[in-house]
Every structure is written in structure tokens, then in C-alpha cells.
């Protein structure tokens, strides 16, 4: 009798994965609700909670470069002072709270959607029938959610920080080049791989349908 591979997926693996996903999904949804409530003045915005009431933004154009606390260059190193500054909002308005939490809200919503669909896929493994049209759709949703999150979260960060900076310093809003610069091309590649995996499941579903009713 051939030996069972130690990497073979067992029922215990399915239980552990589902448990982890349920806990992570619950935590993410709680964070999402907390972030939503934080937008309102119901919660204090003094920086003591999990949501930061400050943003790190670039120095305005034309601002003199700050001096580094040590000599700027030596034979073996070079030092540059930071080109950014931190703006802290002690009593942010609702609009400012929204801009401060928007990236987190988008990331939490995307993470929750991905985890929910992964949980449904894991449950189909328990039933022993993963090659279904429903799983093809779930994998596509996961892939597109990862892609959307990869593009939208950095964009929301940059747009939010730009608008807040403009409001405080009276400078220009934001630049498109900086918005695109925050995109992780690794995650874009991951989402394309997930789309490929969805296509594998689609073909597997079709092959499974061909085998159904075969005697």
C-alpha cells in the first residue's frame, strides 16, 4: 500500500484553517466597525486608540531641507534629513476623520471579503467537492478584491494625506505620480496568479461535469 504523504490535506487541517479564518474574519469585521464608528465624534481622536490621528506627509515644495543632526557625509556613509513631516489632528472634523480612516476601511473591507470567500472554499473541501462553479466565482472575487485593494488602499492613503496636507498647509492636493507610486506590483502579480488559479478551477469544474454520470 503506498505511503500517505505527510503533506496530504486531512480533516484536521480543514478544521484548523476554518477556525483561523473565522477568528481572523471576526477580528477584521470588529476593526471595520470600530473604524466606521471612529469617523463619528463618538470616539476620542487623541491618538490613544488603534487609529492614528496623524499623517506623515511630504514637505511642501520649496521648504528648506532640514539639517541632519550629524555631518551629512563621510568617507563611508551619507545622511539626509527626512523629507517628510507629521501632522497631528488633535480634534479632527468628521471629514478629516474619514480621510484618516479611509485606507484602513478599504483594507479591512477587502480583507474581510477575501477571508469570507476563503472560508467558503475551505468548507467545500470538507464536503469533498471543491470543483464547483461557486468556487470558481469565489476565487475570481478573491483575485479581483486583492487587485482592487492593492490599487485603492495606497491611492486612498495618498489622496487622503494630500487633501489633509492641503487643508493644513494650504499647498496643492496630491500628484498622480505619487498615487501610482504606492502600488505594490508584487500584490498585482499575486492577484493575477489568483485569477489563473480561478481558471484552473473553472477547467476542473468542467472536467468534473464531464465525469458526472460516467459508469
Amino acid at each position, binding site marked *: 500500500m503506498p505511503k500517505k504523504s505527510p503533506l496530504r490535506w486531512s480533516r484536521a487541517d480543514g478544521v484548523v484553517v476554518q477556525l483561523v479564518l473565522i477568528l481572523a474574519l471576526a477580528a477584521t469585521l470588529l476593526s471595520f466597525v470600530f473604524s466606521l464608528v471612529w469617523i463619528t465624534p463618538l470616539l476620542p481622536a487623541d491618538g490613544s486608540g488603534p487609529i492614528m490621528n496623524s499623517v506623515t506627509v511630504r514637505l511642501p515644495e520649496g521648504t528648506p531641507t532640514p539639517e541632519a543632526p550629524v555631518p551629512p557625509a563621510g568617507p563611508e556613509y551619507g545622511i539626509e534629513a527626512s523629507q517628510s513631516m507629521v501632522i497631528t489632528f488633535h480634534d479632527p472634523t468628521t471629514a478629516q476623520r474619514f480621510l484618516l480612516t479611509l485606507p484602513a476601511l478599504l483594507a479591512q473591507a477587502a480583507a474581510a471579503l477575501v477571508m469570507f470567500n476563503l472560508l467558503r472554499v475551505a468548507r467545500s473541501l470538507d464536503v469533498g467537492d471543491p470543483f464547483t462553479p461557486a468556487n470558481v466565482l469565489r476565487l475570481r472575487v478573491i483575485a479581483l478584491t486583492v487587485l482592487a485593494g492593492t490599487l485603492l488602499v495606497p491611492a486612498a492613503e495618498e489622496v487622503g494625506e494630500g487633501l489633509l496636507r492641503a487643508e493644513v498647509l494650504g499647498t496643492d492636493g496630491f500628484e498622480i505620480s505619487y498615487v501610482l507610486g504606492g502600488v505594490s506590483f508584487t500584490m498585482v502579480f499575486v492577484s493575477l496568479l489568483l485569477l489563473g488559479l480561478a481558471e484552473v478551477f473553472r477547467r476542473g469544474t468542467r472536467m468534473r461535469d*464531464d465525469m458526472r*454520470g*460516467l459508469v
Partner: protein
Amino acid sequence: MPPEEDEGADIVVRLDEVLAARGITLTELAARVGITVVNLSVLKNGRARAIRFSTLAALCRELDCRPGDLIDYRPAADRT
């Protein structure tokens, strides 16, 4: 013509007729052929979508018949 365009045409399975003629039960035939009673019942009731050649050959061997005795093709026009 692709299968899905040949609406109404059907493959007819005459396994029940051959079983009756040979005096063999479905359960006995399933044991001789080496497939489950459930699968053989699926075939007998016309719910099978495909049959392996190995299964067809085993059925013909045990029932002492030809494939044409077990399955037949009925064009769409003949069903009206």
C-alpha cells in the same frame, strides 16, 4: 453537429430488457462486472452520461450479448 445542438436525440439503454431475458438481477450483474449497484442502476435508468469501454465490454461478457443489444440510438424525429 455538436452534441448540444442535437436536441431531442437520445441514446437508449436496453439493459433492463437484456437482464430480464437472461434472468439475472441487477445486484448479481453488478458483482460480476465489478461496478457498484448504484452506478449500474444509473445506467439502467437512462441517467448515465457516459460509459467506459471497459464497463461495456464487461457487460457484454457477462450478458453474452453485443453492445448494440444494450444501447441504441434514437434520432430526434423518432421521439415524436
